């Protein structure tokens, strides 16, 4: 759209109406809100990941109970001793992933699966006897 005389006059007149600028501390205040929002998002994301992983682990545990017929207490004892053995052997790896939540959960999930297999093996052994 080409600029007419009316456009030039209107622009000049409207420039007079320009209101004061925003609060000089606005950026700082806004960034505090942004940081808060970012922290909230991170927490929500972590919660989602945590819940998903716990759900997977729970599924394995329930499956283990169902398949082996062991009581929850027996299952916990068997899993703990197996995980202790597993994590003890992988001490160096555990140190390497310390502080990394996702990696820890992955290891725990793998541990959960391994525990399940160990429990099944225990059960099979008990049947053999």
């Amino acid at each position: 759209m080409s600029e007419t005389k009316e456009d030039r006059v209107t622009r000049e007149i409207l420039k007079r109406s320009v209101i004061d600028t925003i609060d000089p501390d606005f950026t700082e205040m806004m960034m505090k809100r942004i940081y808060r929002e970012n922290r909230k998002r991170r927490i929500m994301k972590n919660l989602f990941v945590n819940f998903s992983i716990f759900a997977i682990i729970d599924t394995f545990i329930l499956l283990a109970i169902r398949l082996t017929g062991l009581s929850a207490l027996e299952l916990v004892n068997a899993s703990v001793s197996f995980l202790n053995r597993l994590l003890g052997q992988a001490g160096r790896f555990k140190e390497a992933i310390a502080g990394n939540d996702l990696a820890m959960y992955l290891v725990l999930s793998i541990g959960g699966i391994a525990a399940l297999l160990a429990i099944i093996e225990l059960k099979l052994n008990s049947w053999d006897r």
Partner: protein
Amino acid sequence: MEEFYLRLVLEGDVSKFSWFIDRYKDMAFSIAYRVVNNREDAEEVVQDAFLKAFKSLEKFRRGSRFSTWLYRIVVNTALTRVRSEPPKMETFDETVASDVVVGEVESAYRALDLSEQKELVNDALVELNVEDRLILVLYYLEENTVEEISETTGIARENVKMKLHRARGRLYVIMNNKLKSEIRSVLR
């Protein structure tokens, strides 16, 4: 430059979002103020708009202008806020609007001192409806093109031209009426 900062923010360097705030806060405030007509509300609108922009930064289409995208968020946030208020009645006579000669208003306007000029223009803008105010501010103050105004407001390109013309006419009618009543009060 904009692309560079955008990438940094998206990669997790949240502090770099301050670059966008510093760059666009005044223009966003100016637009919000013209919609809500109140300093406190305008600041809140700008805060909410920046927060919305930050949250949906991943949805911003690369290649298009960040400012146009942000202004659209500001306009929508501001309109949502004023929609709860009762709409202003429009009492304009279109034939009168086209009869007002810009030159007449301009010469009377120039006779005023700076503070009177500012007061006159601000009072006239307040009497316009939200859409007229917004289009005038985007076109004349923010120097947006018709295409950008169309993108920001969601009004079709052809309608923007027509509405811009009408809004300008209405602004001059209001300014003319105010100047006339001012002269009458001086002569009395």
